[in-house]
């Protein structure tokens, strides 16, 4: 296996308090024991170890500054960290920041432009959708602040390159038509829609049972609008799944059967499992207390424990293994398969939703490839 994404938790705290957050509101309190921000000593050790990992595996990877809110580092520390990372990794590794957008500023954008670092901003849609869950620590709406940050990003001389897109969490009770129209009018280059976290034991928001299709109906409406749009922006999750149906390759975690190699480094330099597993009762910690600067990342990635964790992403449920849609669905995110009693040996809790979505994709693609049959 090889690592293709490294997630750096450069800040363990956040300036927002989104009610659906898997770090702070899904039963895992490990962030309380983390330093608030990654120290320069830790990020230097991380940069050196990542350079060694790149040499060891002979291929680059993406590095994503994540959190918490990564821009809580502040401009000065962010600049130092990005310089060290870029110097260690060279131009071959993509470096990006996943931010809530509130703290975007001209100095930060200049730093990102200098180091060829792109930004993706979390924005769930129009204010009435976004502000329902994405509030600050005093429960105040954040949409206007996020939009202000995105406008600064779009205005920057390098904005077209720096702004990679928007990440939107789905509220199936919202109007998909309104959300699509909002993003269309806002002029975003790309949107990636994420389902809310949950599992068979603790159902995702808005889902009444594992067999219900609230998310499927919502995302299928988005798909129909997307396919009919004469000038569509990119929708990553739909593109990936339809590419798989067309015989192409997907790159998104939780879709398709390509293994993905994700290495998560926490704010104190410790190595963790896929952080979305915080939302399931089994958590995201390895039995071994691996730490950057003490243990080699290349050795960690090659260890039996890491390999075992890596292979756990492959679906094991007989329902999945016998399903004709597995090569597109991929069994979903590991954390969404959890159920008390059977662990992760289940289809995704969004199985019915994904069946509905893939069926509609097949209709659209079939109408293109086999117009007579689809008519």
């Amino acid at each position, binding site marked *: 296996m090889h690592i293709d994404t490294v997630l750096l938790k450069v800040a363990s705290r956040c300036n927002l308090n989104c009610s659906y957050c898997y770090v702070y509101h899904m039963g895992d309190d490990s962030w309380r024991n983390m330093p608030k921000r990654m120290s320069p000593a830790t990020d230097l050790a991380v940069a050196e170890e990542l350079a060694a990992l790149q040499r060891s595996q002979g291929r680059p990877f993406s590095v994503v500054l994540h959190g918490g809110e990564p821009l809580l580092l502040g401009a000065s520390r962010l600049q130092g960290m990005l310089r060290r990372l870029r110097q260690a990794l060279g131009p071959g590794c993509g470096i990006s920041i996943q931010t809530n957008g509130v703290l975007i500023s001209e100095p930060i954008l200049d730093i990102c432009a200098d180091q060829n670092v792109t930004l993706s901003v979390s924005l769930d849609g129009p204010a009435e959708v976004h502000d329902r869950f994405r509030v600050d620590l005093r429960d105040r709406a954040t949409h206007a602040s996020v939009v202000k940050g995105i406008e600064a990003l779009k205005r920057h001389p390098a904005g077209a390159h720096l702004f990679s897109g928007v990440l939107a969490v789905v509220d199936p009770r919202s109007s998909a038509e309104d959300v699509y129209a909002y993003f269309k009018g806002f002029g975003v280059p790309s949107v990636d829609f994420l389902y809310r976290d949950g599992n068979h034991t603790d159902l995702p928001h808005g889902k009444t049972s594992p067999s219900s299709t609230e998310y499927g109906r919502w995302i299928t409406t988005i798909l129909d609008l997307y396919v009919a749009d004469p000038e569509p922006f990119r929708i990553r999750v739909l593109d990936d799944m339809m590419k798989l149906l067309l015989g192409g390759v997907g790159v998104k975690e939780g879709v398709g059967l390509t293994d993905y190699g994700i290495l998560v480094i926490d704010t104190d330099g410790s190595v963790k499992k896929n952080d979305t597993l915080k939302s399931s009762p089994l958590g995201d910690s390895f039995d071994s207390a691996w730490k950057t600067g003490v243990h080699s990342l290349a050795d960690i990635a090659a260890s039996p424990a890491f390999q075992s964790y890596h292979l756990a992403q492959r679906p094991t449920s007989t329902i999945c293994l016998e399903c004709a849609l597995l090569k597109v669905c991929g069994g979903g995110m590991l954390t969404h398969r959890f159920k008390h009693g059977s662990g992760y040996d289940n289809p995704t809790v969004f199985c019915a939703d994904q069946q509905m979505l893939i069926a509609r994709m*097949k209709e659209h693609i079939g109408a293109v*490839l086999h117009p007579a049959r689809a008519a």
Partner: protein
Amino acid sequence: MDNGQVAEGLEAAPEEVQSLDAPIDSPAIRRLLEEVRAEQVDVSRSYNRTFNRHNR
């Protein structure tokens, strides 16, 4: 068709994707077809799986 039922046999065979020259009304699907064709030629792979997580 009932959305809960999957129509079999509508996935694309590689030769279909390569040889399709009929006009495609949907720009989104046309764009994907062009990208899949390019991938089949140079097998390019993106390393970027950035945008798949909730941010806080």
